[in-house]
């Protein structure tokens, strides 16, 4: 679930960035439109916090990618897609990470990727956006809306945000782990996605 949320967030962020980028480029530097925004993996983070019997446990995904395409004139028509390698999940403990690869959790051998595909982007003003789309994890597709905000520093544009994913909607932690008194259904997803090639906002 965490992965799904994360993916969604990233996708939303990416979409927002793309939309903003082309628009700015068009007004300031027409040449910039030729440069598609690139995810700066080293500066990006995709993390989550789940609760086990009330104890917050932080995790993250090490490998993910995003593709953006956007019409600067119509940010609402922009598209963001996101892929997360579920096997790259880490709770910081190799034994737990191996556990998460099992079918009851992410089943990452059978379905290695989680994905997000945006369907609508809404500008809320003040650098804030809402990206709606479909999040697909473990063969379960759900509509999600991810709020995010954009900040620019130099040539880097950073989208950050978070949302709550219901892990059971994606069968993350199935069977004996479905008990939400043990592992809460709500998983807080947090992301920080850095992109290059986004025109000034």
């Amino acid at each position: 679930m965490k992965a799904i949320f994360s993916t969604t967030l990233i996708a939303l962020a990416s979409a927002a960035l793309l939309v903003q980028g082309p628009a700015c480029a068009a007004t300031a530097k027409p040449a910039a439109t030729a440069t598609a925004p690139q995810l700066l993996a080293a500066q990006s983070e995709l993390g989550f916090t789940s609760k086990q019997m009330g104890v917050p446990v932080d995790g993250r995904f090490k490998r993910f990618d995003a593709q953006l395409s956007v019409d600067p004139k119509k940010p609402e028509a922009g598209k963001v897609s996101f892929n997360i390698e579920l096997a790259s999940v880490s709770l910081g403990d190799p034994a737990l990470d191996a556990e998460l690869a099992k079918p009851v959790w992410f089943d990452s051998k059978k379905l290695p990727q989680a994905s997000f595909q945006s369907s609508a982007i809404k500008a809320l003003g003040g650098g804030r956006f809402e990206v709606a789309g479909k999040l697909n994890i473990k063969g379960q597709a759900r509509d999600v809306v991810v709020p995010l905000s954009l900040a620019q520093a130099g040539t880097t544009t950073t989208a950050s945000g978070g949302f709550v994913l219901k892990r059971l909607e994606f069968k993350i932690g199935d069977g004996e782990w479905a008990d939400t008194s043990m592992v809460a259904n709500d998983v807080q997803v947090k992301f920080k996605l850095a992109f290059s090639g986004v025109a000034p906002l």
Partner: protein
Amino acid sequence: MPSHPSARHHGLTIFLHWLLALAIVGAFGMGLYMSDLPLSPTRLKLFNWHKWAGMTILALSALRLLWRLAKRAPADLAMPAWQARAAHAVHFLLYLCFFAVPLSGWAYSSAAGFPIVWFGVLPLPDFVPVDKLLAETLKERHEQLAWLLALLVLAHVAGALKHQWIDRDGLLQRMLPGPR
């Protein structure tokens, strides 16, 4: 010799003694059983219950120590001086372990990145950073201290039974609940 069998411990002292005896035996048994379990909801449950029990033992031990300092124990029964010294040494080390075992477990939890949320409600602060190597060391210390506590409990129980069955001096009655 101040050997009055009637010099019983205070009711609260007796209550805390047996409550903590039960909690410590329970936490030790859980700790022993859970450490080799494969990852499962049962293991997760036992680890959290063990931590909750440990923190309860820590809090009750603090209360107990304050109570003991405020209300001195009755005088020793007649016994050879070395036996009295040995009993006091065991008591002193037991009290040390009442604090050292839970505190090392708390630190181990923090270092492992799984902080304690007391009874799933009250998050306890982390006084050591998340550090896997430190966590391994603290885990070993926690286990060693728990075994030391177990040995001290055995010595304590053996001493009490010696008084009950060999010396027959009524020492055990002083710590048993019942009419004065």
